[in-house]
């Protein structure tokens, strides 16, 4: 388990010393959300209805943007080869890298979401449920995204391929999360959606590290 923390610490150190790789997806997230009122309508009634969708779609695209670099640099400089030839479980090492990705992308998105929610006139209960859905589902975005990132690791200019692979898998999360926020805003029960998001998280936590490890082995052959 020690190697899990060491990999996590290493990845966080690398990211902190190369802040553009962390800040770019977050800036994209904030800018894309802030453009919607200009394009659609600045009216509170309109924006509050679509706020959940805007924030959720933007956060998914921001996560997608950051996934390209999840394994790429380690593949380029040969660290992945060292990980593969190590006696430690590759799935555990990948889980650690996914955790670092979530800390650097998912947590900032969760922390920014109340501000952006208020900016889009989302009510208090809506903001609370928005944060809860992001907390439950952003780890799933990182976990599922790692499968795609490991499949395309050796392919150049593969951004579009990653989107084609991953976005269909993100759709259930998008549907349950945005519907939870919309329903909470009109006072309806949202437990079912939250349970679905939690189930997706457990499922992806169980499967994604193993599938990613297998994909990486194939990609590096």
């Amino acid at each position, binding site marked *: 388990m*020690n*190697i899990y923390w*060491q*990999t996590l610490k*290493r990845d966080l*150190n*690398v990211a902190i*010393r*190369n802040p553009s790789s962390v800040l770019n997806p977050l800036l994209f997230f904030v800018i894309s959300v802030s453009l919607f009122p200009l394009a659609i309508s600045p009216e509170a009634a309109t924006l509050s209805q679509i706020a959940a969708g805007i924030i959720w779609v933007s956060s998914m695209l921001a996560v997608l943007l950051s996934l390209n670099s999840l394994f790429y*640099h*380690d593949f*380029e*400089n*040969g*660290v992945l*080869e*060292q*990980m*593969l*030839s*190590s*006696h*430690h479980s590759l799935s555990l090492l990948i889980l650690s890298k996914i955790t670092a990705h979530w800390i650097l992308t998912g947590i900032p998105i969760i922390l920014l979401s109340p501000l952006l929610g208020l900016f889009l006139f989302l009510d208090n209960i809506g903001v609370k449920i928005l944060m809860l859905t992001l907390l439950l589902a952003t780890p799933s975005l990182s976990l599922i995204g790692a499968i795609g990132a490991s499949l395309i690791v050796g392919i150049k200019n593969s951004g579009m391929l990653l989107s084609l692979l991953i976005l269909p898998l993100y759709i259930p999360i998008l549907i349950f999360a945005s519907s939870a926020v919309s329903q909470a805003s009109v006072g309806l029960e949202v437990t079912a959606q939250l349970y679905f998001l939690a189930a997706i998280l457990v499922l992806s936590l169980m499967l994604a590290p193993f599938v990613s490890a297998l994909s990486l082995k194939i990609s*590096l*052959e």
Partner: protein
Amino acid sequence: MSALTLNHLSCQRGYNLLFDNLSLVVNSGDILRITGTNGSGKTSLLKILAGLNTPEQGDVHLDDYPVQSEEYQQDTIYLGHLSALASELSCLENLKYLTALNQAIDEQALIDALNHLGLQGYEHEYCAKLSAGQKRRVILAMLFVSNAKVWLLDEPFTALDPQGVEIVEKCIEKHAQQGGICLFTTHQDSALKNQKILAL
């Protein structure tokens, strides 16, 4: 006494058969230099031995342990073409992590290894600021602290100056004298004593 056994190995890349029915036993204390022209399969062979590639046919064992086993992986170290260093991290930070992938870390031993390779004062220097030869020295410092029985070194002397080559050669010889096994590829002349040659 350990023995690395290669049984009827075949390797194919695309439509090219790189080598076929390769059988070999490398014993404790052996230094095996793998030679061949570009594209003859030297790196592919080392990657098969490191468990990174799967052969078309055949298998590899270290004593009774197959290449996929945890015991095999624990007893081998593979240093490839690539530096395996993150440019955002210092020499010591990189080495600490790469060593941790194989064994427990002894920070002082790593600093001593860097000093031995002429990198005293560079422990906390970011790898982005090092030359290609210095980066090679950093990664080769792993050999000085390694507990692995089998060293798989792909072009270890690339970018090294003659003094660097001499230091690494001495390290390989010492490893062999202590009962270790070393397989390496190089296009350069090597003054290693008692080296055996495998031509692909």
